[in-house]
């Protein structure tokens, strides 16, 4: 396939998923983050012209751009995950089930890395090796973080 056609196909197939990943990680501008990730991928397409390389790169880029965005927002004294999710839940999901609302709230209380691991595992369905590659950590760390995240999630749900 022509390289640019391959890029276009990847964009069509993955843009929405990358945007949603940024949103689930707590970014308040998921579209901008997904766009920026694709512009950076476009720059390096000659070396990453392979879905096996491009998708992990995109995921890692979205995770890192989301972290940067959250750091920036913390500096300007906002707490985007909770604010954004509460606002959107009120506006777009007034009828959402209470159960999902509680999980949403509990997710917002987890540490950044715990939330990332859970989103990559239970939303993107990535295996532990792919999560490790995306986050730049060891597979053992992924296992431990997932385990701690589930314990904390359960605890927050019980407290809530």
């Amino acid at each position, binding site marked *: 396939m022509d390289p640019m056609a391959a890029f276009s196909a990847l*964009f*069509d197939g993955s843009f929405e998923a990358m945007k949603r990943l940024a949103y689930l990680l707590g970014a308040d501008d998921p*579209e901008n983050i997904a*766009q920026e990730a694709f512009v950076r991928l476009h720059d390096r397409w000659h070396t990453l012209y392979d879905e096996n390389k491009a998708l992990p790169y995109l995921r890692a880029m979205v995770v890192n751009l989301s972290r940067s965005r959250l750091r920036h927002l913390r500096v300007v004294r906002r707490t985007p995950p909770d604010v954004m999710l509460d606002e959107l839940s009120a506006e777009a999901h007034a009828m959402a089930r209470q159960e999902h609302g509680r*999980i949403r709230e509990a997710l917002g209380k987890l540490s950044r890395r715990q939330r990332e691991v859970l989103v990559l595992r239970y939303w993107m369905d990535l295996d532990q090796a792919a999560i490790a590659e995306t986050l730049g950590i060891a597979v053992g760390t992924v296992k431990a973080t997932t385990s701690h995240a589930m314990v904390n*999630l359960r605890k927050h749900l019980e407290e809530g």
Partner: protein
Amino acid sequence: MDELEGRLRSALAEMAEEVPPSHHAWAEHQRRVAAKSRRDRRRPVLMAAAAAAVVALIAVPTLILNTRGTGTEQAGQAPPASSSTATEPTKQTRSSLLPSPKYVAKPGETVVTEPFLLAGSVRNGVISNTFAYTVRTAGQTVLCVVTQPTSEGQVVDGTKVHPDFCAPLNRPAQGRYFWSGAVVVPQASDIYLFVASPPTDKILLRESDGSYAAGVRCMQSGEFTVFCTAGGLKKPTAYSALDPAGVALEHR
């Protein structure tokens, strides 16, 4: 899958559905790529302007000093031949800027790769160049970095200058490619140098903020290639040697 995992999966799927689709995402992508391309096209022009300014900074004072005659010789800033006539200094100035850098070996040294200009800098009003080169001495190959004033031209005279530092290069084990870890050059805006065996064609590295950068070939011998990054990179957390087909040979 336990019950909590199922609830979590379901809640995440529902949350993801809250994100409305983007109807003009591809058009926006094209706009951003075009805007970035325009910015990148302007950059070489700016760099050329900066380079021209540096050349002017070097050439003009050199010409002025040389046309004044013996004053330059007394200061020891130019070779004796350059001050004999009014026209020769110009030739000397040009030739000192244009040729490839050369290394004058000390007794007992063998040049493995000639110097490569990593960066220029200005400190206390003195314009300096930072070079990297490799030499073999007492059976050991070393990668050295030296910073010297631009008045020394493109010749690194090992008999006169002391390198900023030298790092030993040890041949990698069978099946490995990197000769040593990353060598950082603080004198040249934190440029990183990597040494790898053939058929390494490129180095891909991940910075501490998660972005990726490539190291390009800057010196080559029969046994290894030295790759350099751009300056100002964040500390690499991982790097890979890639062959010409882009296949990873070794990760670190």
